[in-house]
Protein backbone atom coordinates (compact mmCIF):
# COMPACT_ATOMS: atom_id res chain seq x y z
CA UNK A 1 0.00 0.00 0.00
CA UNK A 2 1.53 3.26 -1.11
CA UNK A 3 -0.59 5.61 0.91
CA UNK A 4 -2.94 4.62 3.70
CA UNK A 5 -4.18 8.09 4.56
CA UNK A 6 -7.67 9.50 4.06
CA UNK A 7 -8.81 13.08 3.68
CA UNK A 8 -12.23 14.65 4.06
CA UNK A 9 -14.07 16.30 1.19
CA UNK A 10 -13.57 19.74 2.78
CA UNK A 11 -9.80 19.25 2.99
CA UNK A 12 -9.71 18.11 -0.61
CA UNK A 13 -11.70 21.09 -1.89
CA UNK A 14 -9.46 23.48 0.03
CA UNK A 15 -6.31 21.72 -1.19
CA UNK A 16 -7.29 21.96 -4.86
CA UNK A 17 -8.65 25.48 -4.42
CA UNK A 18 -5.52 26.84 -2.71
CA UNK A 19 -3.32 25.25 -5.31
CA UNK A 20 -5.16 26.91 -8.20
CA UNK A 21 -5.87 30.23 -6.53
CA UNK A 22 -2.24 31.03 -5.72
CA UNK A 23 -1.27 31.38 -9.37
CA UNK A 24 -4.28 33.52 -10.17
CA UNK A 25 -3.70 35.89 -7.27
CA UNK A 26 -0.20 36.66 -8.53
CA UNK A 27 -0.79 36.57 -12.30
CA UNK A 28 -4.34 37.52 -13.21
CA UNK A 29 -4.10 36.27 -16.80
CA UNK A 30 -7.84 36.68 -17.37
CA UNK A 31 -7.35 40.42 -17.76
CA UNK A 32 -5.40 40.00 -21.01
CA UNK A 33 -7.77 37.47 -22.59
CA UNK A 34 -10.61 38.27 -24.99
CA UNK A 35 -13.06 40.10 -25.12
CA UNK A 36 -10.37 42.57 -24.09
CA UNK A 37 -12.69 45.11 -22.53
CA UNK A 38 -14.43 45.70 -19.19
CA UNK A 39 -16.50 42.49 -19.64
CA UNK A 40 -13.73 40.13 -18.51
CA UNK A 41 -15.53 39.56 -15.21
CA UNK A 42 -18.30 37.78 -17.16
CA UNK A 43 -15.67 35.28 -18.37
CA UNK A 44 -15.05 34.25 -14.79
CA UNK A 45 -18.72 33.39 -14.29
CA UNK A 46 -18.73 31.64 -17.67
CA UNK A 47 -16.02 29.28 -16.42
CA UNK A 48 -18.41 27.59 -13.95
CA UNK A 49 -20.85 25.86 -16.36
CA UNK A 50 -17.97 25.02 -18.70
CA UNK A 51 -15.99 23.44 -15.91
CA UNK A 52 -18.95 21.40 -14.66
CA UNK A 53 -19.61 20.17 -18.20
CA UNK A 54 -16.08 19.53 -19.45
CA UNK A 55 -14.81 17.83 -16.29
CA UNK A 56 -17.45 15.11 -16.72
CA UNK A 57 -14.97 12.54 -18.19
CA UNK A 58 -13.01 12.64 -14.92
CA UNK A 59 -16.26 12.32 -12.97
CA UNK A 60 -17.51 9.24 -14.83
CA UNK A 61 -14.06 7.63 -14.78
CA UNK A 62 -13.95 8.12 -11.01
CA UNK A 63 -17.42 6.58 -10.76
CA UNK A 64 -16.32 3.55 -12.75
CA UNK A 65 -13.04 2.94 -10.91
CA UNK A 66 -13.75 4.08 -7.39
CA UNK A 67 -10.84 2.27 -5.71
CA UNK A 68 -8.22 3.27 -8.26
CA UNK A 69 -6.42 6.50 -8.97
CA UNK A 70 -5.97 8.03 -12.40
CA UNK A 71 -2.60 6.38 -13.05
CA UNK A 72 -3.95 2.97 -12.10
CA UNK A 73 -7.07 3.01 -14.23
CA UNK A 74 -5.26 4.15 -17.37
CA UNK A 75 -3.43 0.81 -17.16
CA UNK A 76 -6.66 -1.02 -16.31
CA UNK A 77 -8.39 0.44 -19.37
CA UNK A 78 -5.64 0.33 -21.99
CA UNK A 79 -3.31 -2.41 -20.71
CA UNK A 80 0.40 -1.84 -21.39
CA UNK A 81 -0.05 1.31 -23.55
CA UNK A 82 -1.76 2.85 -20.53
CA UNK A 83 1.65 3.20 -18.94
CA UNK A 84 2.69 5.40 -21.86
CA UNK A 85 -0.27 7.70 -21.16
CA UNK A 86 0.77 7.75 -17.50
CA UNK A 87 4.34 8.73 -18.37
CA UNK A 88 2.99 11.50 -20.62
CA UNK A 89 1.02 12.85 -17.67
CA UNK A 90 4.09 12.65 -15.43
CA UNK A 91 6.09 14.71 -17.92
CA UNK A 92 3.21 17.20 -18.08
CA UNK A 93 3.11 17.45 -14.29
CA UNK A 94 6.89 17.97 -14.09
CA UNK A 95 6.59 20.70 -16.70
CA UNK A 96 3.76 22.37 -14.78
CA UNK A 97 5.61 22.16 -11.45
CA UNK A 98 8.67 23.72 -13.04
CA UNK A 99 6.49 26.43 -14.59
CA UNK A 100 4.81 27.20 -11.25
CA UNK A 101 8.10 27.42 -9.42
CA UNK A 102 9.53 29.66 -12.16
CA UNK A 103 6.49 31.94 -11.94
CA UNK A 104 6.87 32.05 -8.17
CA UNK A 105 10.52 33.06 -8.25
CA UNK A 106 9.84 35.69 -10.91
CA UNK A 107 7.01 37.16 -8.84
CA UNK A 108 9.16 37.35 -5.71
CA UNK A 109 12.25 38.74 -7.42
CA UNK A 110 10.18 41.33 -9.28
CA UNK A 111 8.06 42.71 -6.47
CA UNK A 112 10.01 42.18 -3.24
CA UNK A 113 13.59 40.92 -3.23
CA UNK A 114 15.22 41.88 -6.49
CA UNK A 115 18.84 41.12 -5.55
CA UNK A 116 18.37 37.60 -4.18
CA UNK A 117 19.18 34.96 -6.82
CA UNK A 118 15.99 33.12 -7.93
CA UNK A 119 17.71 29.77 -7.43
CA UNK A 120 17.71 30.36 -3.68
CA UNK A 121 13.90 30.70 -3.52
CA UNK A 122 13.40 27.69 -5.75
CA UNK A 123 15.63 25.33 -3.79
CA UNK A 124 14.48 26.34 -0.30
CA UNK A 125 10.78 26.24 -1.16
CA UNK A 126 11.01 22.93 -3.02
CA UNK A 127 12.94 21.22 -0.22
CA UNK A 128 10.36 22.36 2.35
CA UNK A 129 7.50 21.26 0.08
CA UNK A 130 9.20 17.91 -0.43
CA UNK A 131 9.18 17.52 3.34
CA UNK A 132 5.42 18.22 3.43
CA UNK A 133 4.86 15.70 0.65
CA UNK A 134 7.05 13.23 2.54
CA UNK A 135 4.60 13.33 5.44
CA UNK A 136 1.76 12.05 3.28
CA UNK A 137 -1.65 13.23 2.20
CA UNK A 138 -3.29 13.36 5.63
CA UNK A 139 -0.96 15.92 7.15
CA UNK A 140 -1.05 17.90 3.92
CA UNK A 141 -4.85 17.98 4.12
CA UNK A 142 -4.85 19.12 7.74
CA UNK A 143 -2.24 21.74 7.06
CA UNK A 144 -4.36 23.10 4.21
CA UNK A 145 -7.38 23.31 6.49
CA UNK A 146 -5.28 25.65 8.62
CA UNK A 147 -3.72 27.68 5.81
CA UNK A 148 -6.55 28.12 3.29
CA UNK A 149 -8.78 30.20 5.63
CA UNK A 150 -5.82 32.52 6.33
CA UNK A 151 -5.39 33.09 2.61
CA UNK A 152 -9.11 33.65 2.08
CA UNK A 153 -9.35 36.11 4.97
CA UNK A 154 -6.37 38.07 3.69
CA UNK A 155 -7.82 38.30 0.16
CA UNK A 156 -11.29 39.26 1.44
CA UNK A 157 -9.77 41.79 3.85
CA UNK A 158 -7.86 43.37 0.97
CA UNK A 159 -11.04 43.57 -1.11
CA UNK A 160 -13.00 45.14 1.78
CA UNK A 161 -10.24 47.69 2.36
CA UNK A 162 -10.43 48.67 -1.29
CA UNK A 163 -14.21 49.01 -1.56
CA UNK A 164 -14.19 52.74 -0.85
CA UNK A 165 -11.96 53.41 -3.88
CA UNK A 166 -13.96 51.33 -6.34
CA UNK A 167 -16.06 52.81 -9.08
CA UNK A 168 -18.93 50.65 -10.42
CA UNK A 169 -19.09 52.82 -13.55
CA UNK A 170 -15.96 51.02 -14.81
CA UNK A 171 -18.13 47.98 -15.58
CA UNK A 172 -20.15 49.90 -18.18
CA UNK A 173 -20.90 49.47 -21.08
CA UNK A 174 -22.14 46.00 -20.43
CA UNK A 175 -21.63 43.12 -22.94
CA UNK A 176 -20.02 45.40 -25.48
CA UNK A 177 -18.77 42.63 -27.75
CA UNK A 178 -21.39 39.97 -27.10
CA UNK A 179 -21.20 36.71 -25.23
CA UNK A 180 -19.09 34.57 -27.56
CA UNK A 181 -15.58 35.86 -26.62
CA UNK A 182 -16.50 35.30 -22.99
CA UNK A 183 -17.26 31.70 -23.83
CA UNK A 184 -13.78 31.27 -25.26
CA UNK A 185 -12.14 32.81 -22.21
CA UNK A 186 -14.23 30.55 -19.98
CA UNK A 187 -12.59 27.70 -21.87
CA UNK A 188 -9.19 29.28 -21.22
CA UNK A 189 -9.90 29.51 -17.48
CA UNK A 190 -10.99 25.88 -17.50
CA UNK A 191 -7.81 24.86 -19.31
CA UNK A 192 -5.61 26.46 -16.64
CA UNK A 193 -7.34 24.27 -14.10
CA UNK A 194 -4.91 21.34 -14.15
CA UNK A 195 -5.89 20.58 -10.54
CA UNK A 196 -8.52 18.32 -12.13
CA UNK A 197 -5.73 15.79 -12.73
CA UNK A 198 -4.78 16.06 -9.06
CA UNK A 199 -8.45 15.49 -8.21
CA UNK A 200 -8.51 12.32 -10.29
CA UNK A 201 -5.37 11.07 -8.53
CA UNK A 202 -6.52 11.96 -5.00
CA UNK A 203 -10.15 10.76 -5.19
CA UNK A 204 -9.41 7.23 -3.85
CA UNK A 205 -8.22 8.85 -0.61
CA UNK A 206 -11.59 10.50 0.03
CA UNK A 207 -12.98 9.13 3.29
CA UNK A 208 -16.60 8.97 2.13
CA UNK A 209 -17.08 7.85 -1.40
CA UNK A 210 -20.45 9.59 -1.61
CA UNK A 211 -18.75 12.96 -1.18
CA UNK A 212 -17.45 12.80 -4.75
CA UNK A 213 -20.29 15.07 -5.89
CA UNK A 214 -19.46 17.61 -3.17
CA UNK A 215 -15.88 17.85 -4.39
CA UNK A 216 -16.90 17.91 -8.04
CA UNK A 217 -19.32 20.82 -7.55
CA UNK A 218 -17.83 22.62 -4.54
CA UNK A 219 -14.34 23.10 -5.96
CA UNK A 220 -15.36 25.02 -9.13
CA UNK A 221 -17.92 27.14 -7.26
CA UNK A 222 -15.36 28.27 -4.67
CA UNK A 223 -12.83 28.90 -7.42
CA UNK A 224 -15.17 30.94 -9.61
CA UNK A 225 -16.40 33.05 -6.70
CA UNK A 226 -12.83 33.98 -5.78
CA UNK A 227 -11.67 34.56 -9.33
CA UNK A 228 -14.70 36.78 -9.90
CA UNK A 229 -13.89 38.77 -6.74
CA UNK A 230 -10.30 39.32 -7.86
CA UNK A 231 -11.16 40.37 -11.39
CA UNK A 232 -14.05 42.62 -10.36
CA UNK A 233 -11.86 44.31 -7.74
CA UNK A 234 -9.06 45.03 -10.18
CA UNK A 235 -11.40 46.36 -12.86
CA UNK A 236 -13.51 48.50 -10.53
CA UNK A 237 -10.38 49.95 -8.98
CA UNK A 238 -8.21 50.74 -12.00
CA UNK A 239 -10.54 50.50 -14.96
CA UNK A 240 -9.75 48.05 -17.74
CA UNK A 241 -7.35 50.22 -19.71
CA UNK A 242 -4.99 50.74 -16.80
CA UNK A 243 -5.31 47.18 -15.47
CA UNK A 244 -4.17 45.53 -18.68
CA UNK A 245 -0.84 47.36 -18.61
CA UNK A 246 0.07 45.78 -15.26
CA UNK A 247 2.04 42.58 -14.85
CA UNK A 248 0.65 41.74 -11.41
CA UNK A 249 -2.75 43.50 -11.32
CA UNK A 250 -3.97 42.26 -7.94
CA UNK A 251 -0.66 43.00 -6.27
CA UNK A 252 -0.77 46.54 -7.65
CA UNK A 253 -4.28 46.84 -6.22
CA UNK A 254 -3.00 45.85 -2.78
CA UNK A 255 -0.27 48.48 -2.92
CA UNK A 256 -2.89 51.22 -3.24
CA UNK A 257 -4.52 50.33 0.09
CA UNK A 258 -4.59 53.32 2.41
CA UNK A 259 -7.00 53.56 5.32
CA UNK A 260 -6.89 56.95 6.99
CA UNK A 261 -3.14 57.25 6.31
CA UNK A 262 -2.53 54.74 9.11
CA UNK A 263 -2.90 51.32 7.51
CA UNK A 264 -0.63 51.36 4.52
CA UNK A 265 1.81 49.06 2.72
CA UNK A 266 0.08 45.87 3.76
CA UNK A 267 1.53 43.94 0.81
CA UNK A 268 4.11 42.15 2.98
CA UNK A 269 1.30 40.48 4.96
CA UNK A 270 -0.28 39.49 1.69
CA UNK A 271 2.96 38.01 0.34
CA UNK A 272 3.39 36.03 3.58
CA UNK A 273 -0.07 34.48 3.19
CA UNK A 274 0.65 33.89 -0.48
CA UNK A 275 3.87 32.00 0.34
CA UNK A 276 1.97 29.70 2.70
CA UNK A 277 -0.43 28.86 -0.12
CA UNK A 278 2.41 28.34 -2.55
CA UNK A 279 4.03 25.92 -0.15
CA UNK A 280 0.81 23.87 -0.19
CA UNK A 281 0.68 24.06 -3.97
CA UNK A 282 4.19 22.79 -4.54
CA UNK A 283 3.74 20.06 -1.93
CA UNK A 284 0.60 18.89 -3.72
CA UNK A 285 2.31 18.90 -7.13
CA UNK A 286 5.32 16.97 -5.83
CA UNK A 287 3.09 14.51 -3.99
CA UNK A 288 0.89 13.79 -7.00
CA UNK A 289 3.90 13.41 -9.30
CA UNK A 290 5.80 10.96 -7.10
CA UNK A 291 2.61 9.04 -6.35
CA UNK A 292 1.97 8.80 -10.09
CA UNK A 293 5.49 7.56 -10.81
CA UNK A 294 5.20 4.93 -8.07
CA UNK A 295 1.82 3.75 -9.32
CA UNK A 296 2.97 3.47 -12.92
CA UNK A 297 6.11 1.47 -12.08
CA UNK A 298 4.40 -0.44 -9.24
CA UNK A 299 6.82 0.71 -6.56
CA UNK A 300 6.17 0.00 -2.89
CA UNK A 301 7.25 3.39 -1.54
CA UNK A 302 7.11 6.85 -3.05
CA UNK A 303 9.23 8.76 -0.53
CA UNK A 304 12.74 8.04 -1.94
CA UNK A 305 11.66 9.67 -5.22
CA UNK A 306 10.99 13.11 -3.72
CA UNK A 307 14.54 14.49 -3.61
CA UNK A 308 15.51 13.20 -7.09
CA UNK A 309 12.30 14.79 -8.44
CA UNK A 310 13.20 18.13 -6.82
CA UNK A 311 16.67 17.87 -8.35
CA UNK A 312 15.04 17.45 -11.75
CA UNK A 313 12.45 20.24 -11.35
CA UNK A 314 14.99 22.91 -10.36
CA UNK A 315 17.08 22.82 -13.61
CA UNK A 316 13.94 22.55 -15.76
CA UNK A 317 12.48 25.63 -14.08
CA UNK A 318 15.68 27.59 -14.71
CA UNK A 319 15.26 26.71 -18.37
CA UNK A 320 11.64 27.88 -18.42
CA UNK A 321 11.91 31.05 -16.41
CA UNK A 322 14.63 33.07 -18.13
CA UNK A 323 12.41 36.12 -18.50
CA UNK A 324 8.85 37.04 -17.75
CA UNK A 325 7.86 38.09 -21.28
CA UNK A 326 8.59 34.67 -22.77
CA UNK A 327 6.79 32.95 -19.92
CA UNK A 328 3.70 35.13 -20.21
CA UNK A 329 3.65 34.39 -23.92
CA UNK A 330 3.48 30.69 -23.15
CA UNK A 331 0.72 31.02 -20.54
CA UNK A 332 -1.32 33.39 -22.72
CA UNK A 333 -4.70 32.38 -24.14
CA UNK A 334 -3.16 31.77 -27.59
CA UNK A 335 -0.85 28.92 -26.60
CA UNK A 336 -1.67 27.48 -23.22
CA UNK A 337 -5.26 26.17 -23.69
CA UNK A 338 -4.35 24.08 -26.73
CA UNK A 339 -1.58 22.44 -24.72
CA UNK A 340 -3.40 21.84 -21.43
CA UNK A 341 -6.82 20.92 -22.84
CA UNK A 342 -5.26 17.76 -24.32
CA UNK A 343 -4.47 16.60 -20.82
CA UNK A 344 -7.55 17.71 -18.94
CA UNK A 345 -10.24 17.04 -21.51
CA UNK A 346 -9.29 15.16 -24.68
CA UNK A 347 -7.27 12.24 -23.25
CA UNK A 348 -9.74 11.60 -20.36
CA UNK A 349 -12.62 11.77 -22.84
CA UNK A 350 -11.12 9.06 -25.04
CA UNK A 351 -10.20 7.02 -21.97
CA UNK A 352 -13.85 7.13 -20.91
CA UNK A 353 -15.01 6.09 -24.40
CA UNK A 354 -12.54 3.19 -24.39
CA UNK A 355 -13.68 2.12 -20.92
CA UNK A 356 -17.31 2.10 -22.06
CA UNK A 357 -16.57 0.20 -25.28
CA UNK A 358 -14.30 -2.38 -23.64
CA UNK A 359 -16.62 -2.67 -20.62
CA UNK A 360 -13.89 -1.97 -18.08
CA UNK A 361 -14.93 -1.08 -14.57
CA UNK A 362 -18.54 -0.99 -13.50
CA UNK A 363 -20.71 2.05 -13.23
CA UNK A 364 -22.16 2.56 -9.77
CA UNK A 365 -24.46 5.54 -9.62
Amino acid at each position, binding site marked *: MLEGGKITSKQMILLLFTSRMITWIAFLFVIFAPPGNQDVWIDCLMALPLQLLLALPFYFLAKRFDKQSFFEYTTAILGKPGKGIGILYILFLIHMSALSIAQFSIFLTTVLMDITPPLFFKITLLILSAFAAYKGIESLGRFTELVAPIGMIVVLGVVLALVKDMDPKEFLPFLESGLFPSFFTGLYIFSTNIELIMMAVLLPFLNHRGKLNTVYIGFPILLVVFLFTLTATVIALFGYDLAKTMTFPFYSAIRTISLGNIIERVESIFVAAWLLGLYVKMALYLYVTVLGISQIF*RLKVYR*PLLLPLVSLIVPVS*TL*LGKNIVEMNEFTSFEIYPWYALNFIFIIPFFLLLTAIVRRKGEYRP
Partner: protein
Amino acid sequence: MKVIAVILVFTVIALIQTPDLVRKKQWRELVVSSLLLTLGFILSFLQVIGIELPNPNKGVEAVVRFFTS
Protein backbone atom coordinates in the same frame (compact mmCIF):
# COMPACT_ATOMS: atom_id res chain seq x y z
CA MET B 1 33.40 26.44 -8.43
CA LYS B 2 29.76 26.05 -9.48
CA VAL B 3 30.59 22.75 -11.12
CA ILE B 4 32.01 21.43 -7.87
CA ALA B 5 28.94 22.65 -5.98
CA VAL B 6 26.57 20.84 -8.35
CA ILE B 7 28.57 17.60 -8.15
CA LEU B 8 28.67 17.90 -4.36
CA VAL B 9 24.89 18.46 -4.04
CA PHE B 10 24.02 15.52 -6.25
CA THR B 11 26.50 13.26 -4.47
CA VAL B 12 24.92 14.17 -1.14
CA ILE B 13 21.41 13.42 -2.45
CA ALA B 14 22.60 10.08 -3.85
CA LEU B 15 24.29 9.22 -0.55
CA ILE B 16 21.13 10.04 1.41
CA GLN B 17 18.91 7.98 -0.89
CA THR B 18 20.83 4.92 -1.98
CA PRO B 19 21.98 3.01 1.16
CA ASP B 20 18.44 2.71 2.52
CA LEU B 21 17.06 1.38 -0.77
CA VAL B 22 19.91 -1.12 -1.15
CA ARG B 23 19.44 -2.36 2.41
CA LYS B 24 15.72 -2.96 1.86
CA LYS B 25 16.42 -4.52 -1.57
CA GLN B 26 13.98 -2.16 -3.33
CA TRP B 27 15.64 -2.41 -6.74
CA ARG B 28 12.79 -0.93 -8.81
CA GLU B 29 12.72 2.13 -6.57
CA LEU B 30 16.48 2.41 -6.88
CA VAL B 31 16.32 2.32 -10.69
CA VAL B 32 13.57 4.95 -10.94
CA SER B 33 15.12 7.34 -8.44
CA SER B 34 18.58 7.06 -10.02
CA LEU B 35 16.99 7.73 -13.41
CA LEU B 36 15.40 10.95 -12.11
CA LEU B 37 18.60 11.93 -10.35
CA THR B 38 20.70 11.32 -13.48
CA LEU B 39 18.35 13.42 -15.62
CA GLY B 40 18.49 16.22 -13.06
CA PHE B 41 22.27 15.99 -12.89
CA ILE B 42 22.70 16.12 -16.67
CA LEU B 43 20.40 19.14 -16.99
CA SER B 44 22.04 21.05 -14.12
CA PHE B 45 25.56 20.18 -15.24
CA LEU B 46 24.99 21.32 -18.82
CA GLN B 47 23.54 24.61 -17.59
CA VAL B 48 26.36 25.20 -15.14
CA ILE B 49 29.14 24.69 -17.71
CA GLY B 50 27.37 27.21 -19.93
CA ILE B 51 25.68 25.19 -22.68
CA GLU B 52 22.46 26.83 -23.91
CA LEU B 53 19.66 24.29 -23.69
CA PRO B 54 16.41 24.76 -25.64
CA ASN B 55 13.41 26.04 -23.69
CA PRO B 56 10.65 23.37 -23.64
CA ASN B 57 8.00 26.12 -23.79
CA LYS B 58 9.32 27.16 -27.20
CA GLY B 59 8.78 23.63 -28.51
CA VAL B 60 5.19 23.54 -27.27
CA GLU B 61 4.58 26.99 -28.76
CA ALA B 62 5.91 25.90 -32.14
CA VAL B 63 3.67 22.82 -32.21
CA VAL B 64 0.57 24.79 -31.15
CA ARG B 65 1.21 27.52 -33.72
CA PHE B 66 1.67 24.88 -36.40
CA PHE B 67 -1.78 23.42 -35.67
CA THR B 68 -3.77 26.58 -34.99
CA SER B 69 -2.56 28.86 -37.78
